[in-house]
C-alpha cells in the first residue's frame, strides 16, 4: 500500500481543460471518492493516475515515485472499470490469473493466489465459467477479484457499481467498504453518485468543471459546503437555495424576498452577510433544518406547497418560496395538501449563506 499525491495536475484536450490544477493527497490506506456530475473531470483524473492518459502538466506521485512517465503496468496499480472489462475469451480463473501471469509468477503461486481471491469473493464455484455466463453482480465480483489478486499499491475504481441494479448496488457498496476495512487498501473511487461517496469514503473530493471544489471528510463536506455547487450536489434531496437580498432594518440584518416578506438574521449570520461582496445573498437550507408550520409564527416566512411525497418514514414537501423550490421533510402525521398556504421556519444555526456573485459560502470569521 502507498499514498498518492496529485500536484497541480492539468489535462487539456486542445483548448478544452478537462482537469484544472487539481492537487490532493490520498493517505496510505485511505478511501477517497472523486465525485461530481458527468464531465467534471473525475474519470480523467483517475485515468491520469492509472497512466491511461498522459499528463499535460503537474505531478503524480505513488508511494515515493513520480509516475508521470511510467506505463500503467509499472505503476503498481489495479483498476476496476465501470463496465468491468473482463476478458471475454478467458474463464474466470484465467481472468484472475492474467495479472499474475504478466508478472511472471510461478504457476503454483498463481494457482494459490487465484484460489485465495476466489475464496475471499465467494466465487470458487464460478472459476471455470466464462464472463458471459455470469450475472452482472458476479461479473463485478470477478472484476474486483482481478484487482485484488495482485496486491497492488493503489486500487482505482471507476464507477464500479453504476451498472448494477439498485439492490445489488447497496449490497456491493457494503462489500467494497468491508473489503477496504479488511485490506487497509488505498482506494481512489470515482462516482457520480454522491450517496456512494458519502457512505463509503474516508474523504471525498468534489469536482466540477475540471476543478477540485472541496476535499474533506463527508461529514465536513455535508456540514460546511464551500460553495453553492457543493451545497447543491451533496445531500439528497438537494439543499434548497433561495436567492434573497440583504438589507439593514432597525439595526438588524434582514434578508428580503421579492415576494415582499423578510427574514431577520441571527447576529452570527448577520456577520456572515456583512462579508458578502454584494447585497445579493443565497440562503441554503437542508430539508431537515426547515420547520413547516400551518400558520404564521414569528420568524417564519410564507410559502406555497407544490408537491407532497410521502416515503413512509418522512414526507417530503416541495414548496415555492421566492421563486425557488424548497424541500422540507415533515413527519408523515402532518397532512399537507398541494397548493396549501404554509409557513417555513429556518434553523439559524444550520442555515448556509452564499455570496450570490461569487457563489462561495459566507463565513463569520
Amino acid at each position: 500500500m502507498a499514498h498518492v499525491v496529485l500536484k497541480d495536475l492539468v489535462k487539456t484536450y486542445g483548448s478544452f481543460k478537462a482537469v484544472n490544477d487539481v492537487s490532493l493527497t490520498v493517505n496510505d490506506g485511505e478511501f477517497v471518492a472523486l465525485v461530481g456530475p458527468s464531465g467534471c473531470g473525475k474519470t480523467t483524473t483517475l485515468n491520469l493516475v492509472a497512466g491511461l492518459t498522459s499528463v499535460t502538466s503537474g505531478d503524480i506521485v505513488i508511494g515515493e515515485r513520480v509516475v508521470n512517465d511510467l506505463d500503467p503496468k509499472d505503476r503498481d496499480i489495479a483498476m476496476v472499470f465501470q463496465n468491468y472489462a473482463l476478458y471475454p475469451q478467458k474463464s474466470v480463473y484465467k481472468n484472475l490469473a492474467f495479472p499474475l501471469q504478466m508478472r511472471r509468477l510461478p504457476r503454483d503461486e498463481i494457482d494459490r493466489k487465484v484460489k485465495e481471491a476466489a475464496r475471499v469473493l465467494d466465487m470458487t464455484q464460478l472459476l471455470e465459467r466464462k464472463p458471459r455466463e455470469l450475472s452482472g453482480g458476479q461479473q463485478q465480483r470477478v472484476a474486483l477479484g482481478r484487482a485484488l489478486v495482485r496486491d497492488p499499491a493503489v486500487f482505482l475504481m471507476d464507477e464500479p457499481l453504476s451498472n448494477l441494479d439498485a439492490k445489488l448496488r447497496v449490497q456491493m457498496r457494503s462489500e467494497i467498504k468491508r473489503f477496504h476495512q479488511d485490506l487497509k487498501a488505498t482506494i481512489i473511487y470515482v462516482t457520480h453518485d454522491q450517496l456512494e461517496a458519502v457512505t463509503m469514503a474516508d474523504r471525498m473530493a468534489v469536482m466540477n468543471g475540471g476543478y477540485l471544489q472541496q476535499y474533506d471528510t463527508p461529514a465536513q463536506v455535508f456540514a460546511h459546503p464551500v460553495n453553492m455547487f457543493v451545497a447543491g450536489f451533496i445531500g439528497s434531496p438537494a439543499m434548497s437555495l433561495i436567492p434573497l437580498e440583504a438589507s439593514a432594518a432597525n439595526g438588524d440584518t434582514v434578508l428580503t424576498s421579492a415576494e415582499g416578506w423578510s427574514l431577520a438574521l441571527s447576529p452570527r449570520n448577520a456577520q456572515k452577510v456583512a462579508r458578502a461582496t454584494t447585497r445579493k445573498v443565497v440562503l441554503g437550507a437542508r430539508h431537515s433544518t426547515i420547520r413547516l408550520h400551518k400558520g404564521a409564527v414569528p420568524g417564519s416566512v410564507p410559502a406555497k406547497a407544490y408537491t407532497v411525497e410521502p416515503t413512509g418514514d418522512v414526507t417530503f414537501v416541495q414548496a415555492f418560496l421566492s421563486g425557488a423550490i424548497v424541500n422540507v421533510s415533515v413527519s408523515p402525521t402532518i397532512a399537507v395538501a398541494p397548493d396549501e398556504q404554509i409557513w417555513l421556519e429556518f434553523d439559524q444555526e444550520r442555515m448556509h449563506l452564499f455570496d450570490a456573485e461569487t457563489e462561495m459560502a459566507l463565513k463569520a470569521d
Partner: protein
Amino acid sequence: MSTIAETAPRNQARRRMRIDGWRWGGRIFLAFMLLYTALPMIWMLLTSIKSGFAAMQFPPQWWPDQPNLSSYQKLLDPQNSVGQDFLRFFWNSLVVSTATTILSVIVAVPAAYAFSRFTFPGRNFLFFAVLLRNMFPAVIFLVPLFILMRALGLVNTHGSLVLTYLTFGLPLAIWLLKGFYDNIPVQLEQAARIDGATRFQAFILIVMPLSTPGIIATAIYSFIGAWNEYIYAYTFLSKNEQLTLPVGIQRFFSENTTDFPGLMAASFMMSVPVVVLFLVLQRYFVRALTEGAVKH
C-alpha cells in the same frame, strides 16, 4: 372499461395478422431469391455430369439420361493435357489468392487497429484516401497499372496480380477490420495494460483473439476477390502456364465446339474452395466473441 377489454384482443389480432402478412411476404421473397441464386448452380452441376451431346440438346434434358463423371475425370487427370492445364491453373489461382490473402491480413490488421485506436494528424484524411481507389471502376486502372507493372518488370508474373489485388482488397479489408476493432471495448486493453501488459502484449493477447471473426471475414473476402478476378489476370498474364482459373476456364470455349460439360465441371470445382472456406469458418462469424466482456 368494458370497451377497452373488448377492443384490446381485436387490436392484437389485427396486429398479428399484419405481422403475419409481412412474414409471409418475406418468406416468399427469400424463397424466390434462393431459387434465383441456386438454380444456375444446380444447372451447372447437372450439365457437368451430362455427355457433350446431351448438354447441347433442345429441348434440354432436365435430368441427364446417362449421368457420368467423365468431365471431372478428365479435368483431374494429370496424364491428360486438359487435366494438366486445369490443375496448373488451379494451383496458380491458389497461390495468387493465398498470397493476396496473407499479405492483406498482415497489412490490414495493424492499419485498421491504428485507425481505430490512435489519433494522429491526417487520420481522417488517410482513412478516406484509403477508399479513394475503390471509388473508380477497376477498368480505369487497367492500363496505368499495366504500364506500372511493365516498368517494374512484373508483367507475366503472379506478383503483378498479387500487388493489384491488394490495391482493391486492402482498403476494404482495412475498413472491415476497423469496424471490428471499434467494437472491441478499449477498456479491455486498458485493463490488460494495468494488469501488466505492454501495449503490444495487450494487442496480441487480448485484442487479437477477439478480432478473429473480423480477420477471418477479411481473409475470406480477400481470397474470394482474388480467386474470382478476371480482367487483370487476363491482361497481365499471357503465358499459358501462368494463367489463373478464371482466365484458364475460358479455354473451354472455342470457335466451333464448346465443351459445356467440361466447362461446367471446371466452374463447379472452381467454386468448391470458396464454399469449403465458408463452411469451415462460418461458425466464427456467428459467434459474438466479445459477449460478456463489458456491461452496457
